[in-house]
């Protein structure tokens, strides 16, 4: 097994781990945020506009964490900067 084999195996596994964990935790956080918003909405239906606006912003913040993980995973898979050292 050459270094290149090892490198591709490790980077594939790491990319899969990154995307798995990076989706798992934001999904938990989004679920909690949505359930809290639904609680607040059931208690105070007249505050719907403010609640849904804040919910959207919060979900966007949480979602961007998952997007960071996606970008990192794609960099590992397609544009890995460390690959140059092996191919030189």
């Amino acid at each position, binding site marked *: 097994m050459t270094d290149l084999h090892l490198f591709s195996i490790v980077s594939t596994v790491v990319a899969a781990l990154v995307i798995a964990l990076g989706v798992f935790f934001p999904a938990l956080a989004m679920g909690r945020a949505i359930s809290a918003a639904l609680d607040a909405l059931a208690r105070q239906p007249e505050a719907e506009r*403010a609640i849904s606006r804040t919910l*959207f*912003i*919060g979900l*966007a*913040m949480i979602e*961007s964490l998952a*997007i960071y993980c996606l*970008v990192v995973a794609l960099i590992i898979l397609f544009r890995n900067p460390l690959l140059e050292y092996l191919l030189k």
Partner: protein
Amino acid sequence: MNGAGGIVWLRWHGFVLRESLGLSLAISLLLVVLALGARHLIARPGQADSRLRTLVEVLYTLARDAVAEVVPPAHIQRVLPFISTLWLFILVANLAGLVPGLSSPTGDLSVTAALAVLVFFAVHAYGIRAAGLRAYLRQYLSPGPILLPFHIVSEITRTLALAIRLFGNIMSLEMAALLLLLVAGLLVPVPLLLLHVVEALVQAYIFGMLALIYIGGGLEAAQASEAATPRAPAGPAITNKKEST
């Protein structure tokens, strides 16, 4: 990934016009032409209750109500054009990816970074114009000088996050459709493209809304200096900073 590259439309004496730049320019021109055309049509006599006028007024009222919830009333007319331009441009740019043969300009990091830098400068421009330079800069020292580095870091990270969020969402949607096409075959990605429409709307809304909230946070310095009370204008400014990373 077309983060750095993209399809080249035009090469001329060392200048390279890539698809993302050309398409953004085309969308901007299209929006300007549509706006001027709509204004011309509405301004004709006897158009007091035409359908076009109703449509434009509904859009305007939606945008103005959203802005009025965040920004103090004195600044609505100044902030509204910037925010609604952002909304319209990003919405059209996101939806342009659904046209066969084109890809969304917002799926290119350069375009979203340009938009985020625009928002970055707009926050300071609106804030300084409303409060004056000294009062605006004093906001960065607001609870104490020790928080200055945190304020600066939050300014930078939220601009970066704004750019990467839009880029990542749009690029990943297009990429997912492409991968599904490779794996499953023709016409299978169509449900995913329907999701693309929803995502285009949501991402345009979120980008504009975040820009609006950042501008509202910048304008709070003006309110604090107008109040001119000795107690620290801490509360809302800090909560806005916290959610920015």
